């Protein structure tokens, strides 16, 4: 009896234990992130995804690595700090880009590549799912009734595809052309001109779709655009990509300027200026550190251009390059471009280390958008100004034999009204007018889309000798594919 009691006790104990053993599933959900299934399984979320993709595209192209060092390489902004590879890209003589995964600033080649493809592939997945019959039926116009907005989402998707491919074309020597019909398994790199052409095609498709569907959407932070405005923006971007994708003056001369003219003319007549979201997604590095006197200055190369000729002489306040051994220079003499007063601030001796080269020095910081950092990054951030579009029209008019008077008027919009410089009439030589365009762009839009000055100098054969003309495919990608690493930059190796 005693043993019976004992063993029954043990048996009960063992049973008790085993009954407790199916405690819990070993599946634990990740509550912190989304999955593709979360994101794509419900077509009604696609409009929000298109919206966040515009933010992600902005973030991929406008924060630190994509903008700061490129502007230094273009001699628009100047800083010799090591941050974001700025010093590496600004040092003269120019050196090859360090295209290795171990490079401390590998982000300057990697970040745009991987982040833009992240946007592009997600967009492609959405378009593919719509093509496969996942209709987007939502109350998009807020009238209380749902409607099928497949083509509105498609239009946004095509615009994102065009923006993404366009930026990849302008920045890299080659890239993958991927869209909703791509078989990733057989994918290879295409050269930059083909990538640029693919971008233009996507944007043209976007224009058609936008024009065919009436709607408004808040896809761009702080802006509620109509379909017409989106179409105009896509059209503007075609002009930007065609102009920006040339590597040499010869390529630039041979570019399709007729298309630039028509698309720019059909483009957005006002500034494209998303509202800063306080530094989360929609923010701009160059409007923060790029306007801080300790961090960065307007390149002396541009300061000199804005000075009166007498100031540019040796011993004056604005020689270019900045003279070796001189720690500071006085302010410019009156008579300079008015924007020295309105857009710049004399900031005295820079804190840059002289041994990194006096050619980094400049007395002026850019301060036109000081309101942005002062507002905790919540004011509008001009990214594609009406002036940029106007100058594409002006350049296209000149290069296609169009009205130089109209071109002069477009140039004078800022040249005279903001710069206080003598008006052009159109009677000047093409070169004088073109030089005036590029000067205006350096004076006006270097802090809106920093890469534009790099691309302008590139298509004018005006980059410092030895500057890379485009970036190689990042080492991280080449290593994944098992392809040999390569790079650009250094004299004779620019492209």
């Amino acid at each position: 009896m005693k043993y019976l009691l004992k063993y029954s006790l043990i048996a009960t104990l063992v049973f008790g234990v085993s009954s407790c053993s199916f405690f819990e599933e070993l599946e634990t959900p990740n509550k912190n992130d989304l999955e593709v299934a979360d994101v794509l399984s419900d077509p009604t979320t696609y409009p929000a995804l298109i919206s966040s993709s515009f933010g992600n595209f902005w973030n991929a192209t406008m924060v630190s690595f994509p903008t700061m060092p490129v502007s230094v390489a273009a001699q628009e902004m100047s800083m010799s700090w090591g941050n974001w590879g700025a010093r590496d890209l600004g040092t003269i003589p120019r050196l090859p880009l360090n295209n290795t995964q171990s490079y401390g600033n590998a982000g300057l080649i990697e970040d745009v590549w991987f982040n833009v493809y992240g946007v592009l592939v997600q967009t492609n997945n959405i378009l593919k799912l719509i093509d496969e019959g996942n209709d987007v039926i939502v109350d998009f116009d807020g009238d209380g009734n749902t409607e099928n907005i497949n083509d509105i989402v498609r239009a946004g998707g095509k615009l994102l595809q065009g923006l993404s491919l366009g930026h990849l074309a302008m920045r890299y020597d080659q890239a993958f052309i991927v869209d909703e019909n791509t078989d990733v398994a057989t994918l290879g790199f295409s050269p930059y001109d083909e990538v640029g052409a693919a971008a233009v095609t996507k944007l043209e498709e976007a224009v058609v779709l936008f024009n065919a569907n009436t709607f408004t959407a808040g896809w761009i932070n702080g802006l509620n655009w109509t379909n017409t405005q989106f179409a105009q923006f896509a059209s503007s971007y075609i002009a930007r990509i065609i102009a920006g994708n040339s590597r040499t003056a010869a390529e630039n001369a041979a570019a399709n300027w007729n298309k630039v003219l028509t698309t720019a003319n059909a483009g957005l007549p006002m500034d494209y200026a998303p509202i800063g979201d306080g530094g989360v997604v929609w923010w701009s590095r160059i409007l923060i550190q790029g306007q801080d006197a300790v961090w960065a200055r307007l390149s002396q190369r541009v300061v000199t251009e804005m000075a009166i000729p007498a100031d540019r002489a040796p011993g004056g306040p604005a020689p270019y390059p900045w003279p070796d051994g001189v720690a500071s220079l006085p302010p410019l003499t009156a008579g300079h471009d008015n924007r020295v007063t309105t857009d710049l601030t004399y900031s005295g001796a820079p804190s840059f280390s002289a041994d990194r080269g006096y050619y980094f020095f400049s007395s002026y910081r850019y301060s036109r958008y000081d309101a942005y950092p002062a507002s905790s990054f919540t004011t509008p951030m001009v990214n594609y100004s009406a002036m940029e579009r106007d100058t594409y029209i002006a350049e296209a008019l000149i290069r296609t034999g169009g009205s130089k008077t109209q071109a002069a008027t477009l140039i004078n919009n800022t040249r005279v009204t903001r710069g206080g410089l003598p008006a052009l009439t159109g009677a000047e030589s093409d070169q004088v007018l073109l030089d005036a365009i590029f000067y205006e762009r350096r004076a006006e839009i270097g802090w809106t889309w920093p890469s534009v000055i790099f691309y302008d100098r590139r298509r004018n054969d005006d980059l410092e000798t030895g500057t890379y003309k485009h970036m190689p495919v990042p080492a991280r990608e080449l290593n994944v594919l098992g392809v040999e690493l390569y790079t650009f930059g250094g004299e004779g190796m620019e492209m």
Partner: protein
Amino acid sequence: MKRILLLCFMFLTVFAFSALAQRTVSGTVTDDNGEGLPGVNVVIKGTTTGATTDLDGNYRLTVEDGATLIFSFVGFETQEIEVGARTVIDITMGGITELQEVVITGVGSATSKEKLSFVVEQIGEDMLQQTPGVSAVSGLAGKMAGVRVLNGSGAPGSEPNILIRGASNILRSNDPLIIIDGVLTEASLSDINGEDIKSIEVVKGAAAASLYGSRASNGVVNIQTRRGTDGKQGVTTVKVRSEFGKSFIPYKPNKTTSTNRVLNTQADVDADPSGATLLGYPSNQIKPDGIFDTPWPVVIDHFDQAFTTQDFFTQYVSIQNNSGNTAVFASAQFQKQEGIIILTDGSERTNLRLNIDHTLNEKLTFSASNLYSFSNVDLDGAVGSAVSTDPMFALWQLDPAADIFAPNEEDGTPYNWNANFFGLEVNPLYAINSVTNLEDRTRFLGNYTLSYSPLDWMDVEASFSIDKLNRNRNVFVDQGYLDTFSAGPNGPLGIVDYESFEIDSETLALNLNLYKQFGDLTAKFRAQFFYENRETLEIQAAGSNLAFKGKNTLENVDRTTITLNNNQTKITANNFSGILALDYRDTYLFDALVRRDGVSLFGDNERWQTFYRVSGGYRISQDFDLPGIQELKVRGSYGVAGGRPDFTDQYERIGLADGNSTGQFQTRNPNLKPSLNQELEVGFDVNFLDKFNFSFTYADAHNPDQIMQVPLSASTGFQQIVDNVATLDAKTFEMSLGASVFKNQDWDISANVVWDRTTMEITELNRAPFSVGPDNAFRIEAGQPFGLFYGEVLATSLSQVENQVAENQNVEDIFTINNHGFVVRKDQIGTDQEQVVYLRDDDGVLVLDVIGDITPDFNMGFNSTITWKNITLFMQWDWKQGGDVYNKTFQFGVRDNNVEFTDQALVPYAQRKSFTYINSIYNVNKVNSFFVEDGTFIKLRELALSYRLGSSALSKVGLDNAFKGIKVSAIGRNILTFTKYSGFDPEVGQANGSVGANIYRYDNFNYPNFATFTGSVEFTF
């Protein structure tokens, strides 16, 4: 879920309580002189059931028919007596033996060290309580071969990192599993106090650790605290211990005293009506030669000002009582550690412990261990905040003449925020004084174990554990904060930031132990089910632009500025294990284990994994009488333990922030497995000449399936997958020698030496080589050692720069070697353009190469205890030979010309270098070979001199009625370091990602380790 667990636990408890008593045996235990022996353990063989003799040596317990009693007492030979039909058993214990160490970690049941077939190290109370550590494990430093304890930061409230036998994970944590009284800890060790610790056992190899399966690739540290059952029955012991002393910085590097600027003349002063231009101070103008050799007119030692001698204080009380069936140990400790940085409060911690053991009847025991800890840490001295940089960084960046105690001219508040003349950083004292940056932690550790021994060959145990942490942080910057430089435009408007983090972890262990003797063969078997559930929750909210001054609440911020962050994790695991241990004639030892882990962290297709060990040992000295050798054992084991992936590793991840998806990041990996730690361990242990014990172990670890991020092609739209793609091999030699050097009535001298050497190599990497860690300074590449620094290389020989001259030139004509041993251009040497040259490849691209290695040549520890009558001197030395440190602090110092190296006034005129040269070494902060330093050190970690008054001494002064003993000690910690390292301390490291400071030996403005000198007095009554 928790409810189910508790229900199960209660269910088991009720059944177990219903067990019935048998018959009673009693008796008296005496020594050779016939005196009753109190405190003798009397245990029924094969069970954990037993009793302890009272003050007169009497015991009483209930046994089964056929039971055998084991009588054991420290210092006496253990006796086994068969009960037979007797009800009274009196015995005499004699034959004093050497202390026999018993370990409980990694084994099925408590096993003497002699019978282990793998290494489990143990440190007892006697050693640990010489200088009770600030943290639970700091006392391990230098005491065990193959175990490194690193204090990467000296900040009060920070915890040390332990590294056992080198790394077993490349990109995941190498911290061992820490168990405290059966609780598998999930958070900081800094909550645990040292005085309560009775013993620490360290399981080093995979074989021993395999019992803990996929949590054990880094070894196991098992901490046991004191219990009432450790004391004599019927005796209450109260211990009161007070320690008070001072912390101070033992070494401060020198800073520069010179500038390369032209000094202001009277004319400059006259020309500046603002008064900001001071006569004789450096101006904006750099000298023509650019050399840093003009003395500043005033040089202030800011380290001297900022590092002060601050308090270290511990008050400890414990009560221990063993009243037979119930034994209690309770303690309270308060510790204040102010650290060494002026104006900071350091940390304050209060710990309360209650350990209870209760024998319900001879078959059923219940034990509970509880630790409740609450602490406050002032983070101002240790880390930066939303508005301030790291104070150590700011302290280094001060100009020699900066007056950091001057008031602010703006509002009269103390510590002029912009005290620097040129440096960009803000006076750290301003931020420390103005910014609230506090952490408070609450921690609860609890273990509740019920043991039931229905049969003499069987017992069943259920053990439920809790580890709960609540940590809150608060940063508050009031309106009117002056530092706009680091705080940005919102700083002056005020900032409020609250962060809360919670860990909630429960485990349930159910054990079945079987024990059987078959003639000369003893067999033990244990089966275990082990359930784990761990959840974390993190919430952070911050805002700025305060409406009212002085209100540190989120209700006071501008709603539009509020940012929110939230993170949650949950891990569950069901694990099963079985161990069989056989021992034949106490001579041939065999042990086998299998463990099966089902863990939610593993990919869908790999959710269940198997770990195992086999081990064997042969006690040669049992079979052969070896002259001079008391014990000789050879042992060998092979085991497989594992390392778990991090929570997010297996998932597909698309970022989510502010209600938006922030982009595709990581693809799912359903095939993600734990990393494995497969280790072969062989060695021998020998006790000889009645004085010495020596152990040698060789461990060969093969760690495949290393978990790491693998980049994906951009065309996938994702950035990475986490996968098992690499193998890390480690080979370790360990030796330890203990000696009881001399012993007589007055003297007792003993010493221990430990030595180890580990080499590590990445033998497989199924992805491209890459750099990782702080500043990407560490290289991961197949065929290379693990722990390499990788960066640009300063040329030191002309052959290295042959590819940097034109084809028609001779390298000797272009380059030469300067007095620092670096290659420079011949046409620049001695000029203000002289600069170092970096290695380049044939395309002119800067070469990145191996520039250092964290791995030491060897580690060695030495301790000795010298007792003369009532006086004991204890010291612990720790020697790390080799192993590099990357000195980022120094590199920033070279950038800002604030280190002694840049001070050219100290150098003969002809050898002075311009700032061009100095900045070519700084190299835009890129990792380079110049800043790799030898991290060799020899440290005197602990020094304690104590005087103990026992009861006989106390009786002479009539205090024997009041006290059982009084111990007075003078204690020094970290008081001496011998090193050539140029920074504060070569014992430095920085965590990055999942990898701890024990791998990344990277000096980056860490809070320096400091020394303490204290006095303590301990009363026992």
